C-alpha cells in the first residue's frame, strides 16, 4: 500500500519582530517542520513499520528550495521519498491560499494514487486548517478532520475525531481517504544518525506546474492580502519591570491581594 503525507515548512516569527508593508523580513523568521505534520509523518512511518505488506511512504510539499532541509529531516525519520512542488511562477505568486495548495497537492496525489493521505490539522504559520479536507474533496475521496487516533482496516479506517471539550467522535471512513492529524496522536521520533545518513541518498523530486499538467492560472488567487499588522491588544496588562527578585515581589503582592496564600 502507499501512504502520502503532506508536509510544510512553516515560518515562525522571532521575539521583537517588525513588519515591512505586507511581509515580515527574513531576519525575523525561523523555519521548521509544521508541528502538526510531524505527527502525521510519524503516523505514516508507523503504518509502514506495523504492517506485514510492503508500504511506501511518500512525502509531498509545496515550497522553495530552502525547504529541502526540512524535507530531508522527514526522510531521515523513515519516509521513503519526497516530492517538492515548485517553480518560478509559484515563487512569484507568493501567498497561496488553501484552495490553491489543495489543487497542487491533488495533482501529485492523482499521480501517486495513494491508499491513504495524512495531513496536519493546520499549519502553524497561516493557520487555515483547510488544506486536507479541500484535498480530499478535490480527489473525490473520504476524509476525517482533527484525528487523534486511527485504526487502519481493510478498505476502511476507524478514526477518533477530537471535538471540543474533551469529547471524541468515533467514525469509520472508507478508503482511500485523507485524515488530518492532530498533535498528541503519537510521540514523533527524532531522526537517528543512521536515518540522517540514509536520507542523503533518498530522492526529493521537484515538480513544476507544467510537470503536473496544471495551468498557471490556478495561481491567480481570489484572496488578496491587503494589510499585515501586529494586532492591537484588547487588554492592557500591568507589566512588572525589573529583575526576577523585583518582579517576583510584585507578583507576590498581586497573588496575595487575590487571596493566594491566605490560610
Amino acid at each position, binding site marked *: 500500500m502507499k501512504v502520502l503525507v503532506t508536509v510544510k515548512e512553516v*515560518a515562525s*516569527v522571532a*521575539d*521583537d519582530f517588525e*513588519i515591512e508593508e505586507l511581509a515580515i523580513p527574513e531576519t525575523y523568521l525561523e523555519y521548521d517542520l509544521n508541528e502538526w505534520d510531524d505527527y502525521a509523518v510519524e503516523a505514516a512511518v508507523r503504518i509502514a513499520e506495523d504492517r506485514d505488506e510492503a508500504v511506501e511512504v511518500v512525502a509531498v510539499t509545496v515550497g522553495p528550495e530552502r525547504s529541502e532541509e526540512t524535507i530531508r529531516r522527514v526522510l531521515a525519520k523513515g519516509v521513503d521519498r519526497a516530492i517538492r512542488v515548485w517553480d518560478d511562477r509559484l515563487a512569484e505568486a507568493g501567498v497561496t*491560499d488553501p*484552495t490553491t495548495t489543495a489543487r497542487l497537492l491533488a495533482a501529485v496525489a492523482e499521480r501517486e494514487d495513494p491508499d491513504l493521505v495524512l495531513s496536519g490539522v493546520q499549519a*502553524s*504559520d*497561516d*493557520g*487555515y*486548517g*483547510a*488544506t486536507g*479536507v*479541500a484535498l480530499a*474533496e478535490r480527489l473525490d*475521496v*473520504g*476524509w*476525517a*478532520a482533527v484525528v487523534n487516533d486511527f485504526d487502519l482496516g481493510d478498505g476502511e479506517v476507524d478514526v477518533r475525531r477530537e*471535538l*471540543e*471539550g*474533551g*469529547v*471524541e*467522535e*468515533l467514525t*469509520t*471512513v*472508507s478508503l482511500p481517504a485523507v485524515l488530518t492529524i492532530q498533535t498528541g496522536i503519537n*510521540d514523533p521520533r527524532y531522526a537517528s544518525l543512521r536515518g540522517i545518513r540514509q536520507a542523503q541518498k533518498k530522492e526529493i523530486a521537484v515538480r513544476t506546474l507544467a510537470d503536473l499538467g496544471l495551468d498557471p492560472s490556478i495561481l491567480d488567487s*481570489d*484572496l*488578496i*492580502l*491587503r*494589510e*499585515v499588522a*501586529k*494586532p492591537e491588544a*484588547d*487588554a492592557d*496588562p*500591568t*507589566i*512588572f519591570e525589573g529583575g*526576577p*527578585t523585583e*518582579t517576583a515581589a*510584585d*507578583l*507576590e503582592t*498581586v*497573588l496575595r491581594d*487575590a487571596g493566594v*496564600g491566605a490560610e
Partner: protein
Amino acid sequence: MSGDVLAVAEHRRGDLRPVSYELVSAGRELADATGGDLHVAVGGGDVETFADHLAVEGVDVVHTVAEGEEFNHDVCAAVTTALFESLAPTALLVPHSVNGLDYAPAVATRLSIPLVTDAVAIDYDDGVTAVRETYGSKVEATVEVETEPVALTIRGGEWPAAEGNGDPGIEPFDVDLDESALRSQVRGFEEVGTGDVDISEADFVVAVGRGIDDEENVDLAEELADALDATLAASRPVVDNGWLPKNRQVGQSGTVVTPDVYLALGISGAVQHVAGMKGSETIIAVNTDPDAPIFDVADYGVVGDLFEVVPELIERFG
C-alpha cells in the same frame, strides 16, 4: 448576487453550541452591509426545537433539514451545498469549530468558491474583506476576496451571541441524499480526559506551557503550585508530550477553567488555549516574548524567564 447570507448553525448531543448564536451576529452584520437577508440553516436532530431557539433577532429565515441525528460531514456538506445552490447567497458562514473544519473546505471546493477560515472580523464594501490571525496570533492579516460568493469560517468568541426574540420564517428544506456518496459513518461519542483532579473546580491555577522545556522541569511548576496551594494545569504540548495527563489540559479540546487566579507560565496564548481560560478572574502571565498573545488577555505580566521568576516565587510562598 442577492446580498443574502447563509449561516449554518451547529449543535451537539441535543444542544445548539454557543457559536451558533455568534454566527447569527456575524451573519446579521454582514447581511446589513450587503443589503440582504440572513438565512440560518440547521440540520439533524430535533430541528423544530433548534429552529425555535434560533428564532432570535436578526434572523430572516431558518431552514430546517431533517437528516440524521448528529453531525456527519458527508450529509452536512451535501445539504449545505444544495441549500447554497438554491439560495445563491453572497456569503456562507460556518463556525471555525472542529466540525466546521470537517466540512467547510469540502463545500467551498464543491461550489468552486474561495474560502477564508478563522475570520475574527468581516467587512463588506463592494466585496468581502476578512481579518485573520497568522503566526500564532502574533500577526493580523487583512484579506480581500476578489470574487463573490465566498465561504468564511468564523472564530468563536469574536462576535456577541445574538439574543432577543425574532420572528423568522421557518422553512423545511428537502434534499435528495445520494446514499452511495456517503463515505463516513459516525459510530458514537466518548468522553475523555477525566481523572482524579478536576481543574475546572480550582480557585487558583498554575498552568505551564511549552516554555517549561523539559519533563523534569514540570516538578518546578508543581512545587510552585504546592506553595501557592494551587492546582497544576497545562497547555496542550505539555500533555501531548505525556508530561502531564489529559485531564490537566486547559483549552478548546481540554477543560474550560474559571479560577480566581490563572498564572500562565511559558504559554504563548494560542486561541485554542485562551478559549479555556479567558474567563479567569485575574490572569497573570510570565513569558520571555513581549509579543506573546497571552499578554492580550492578561491583567498582569512579567516579560521574563520563568526559570528565574518561579524559584523566587516559591521562596516567597514556601
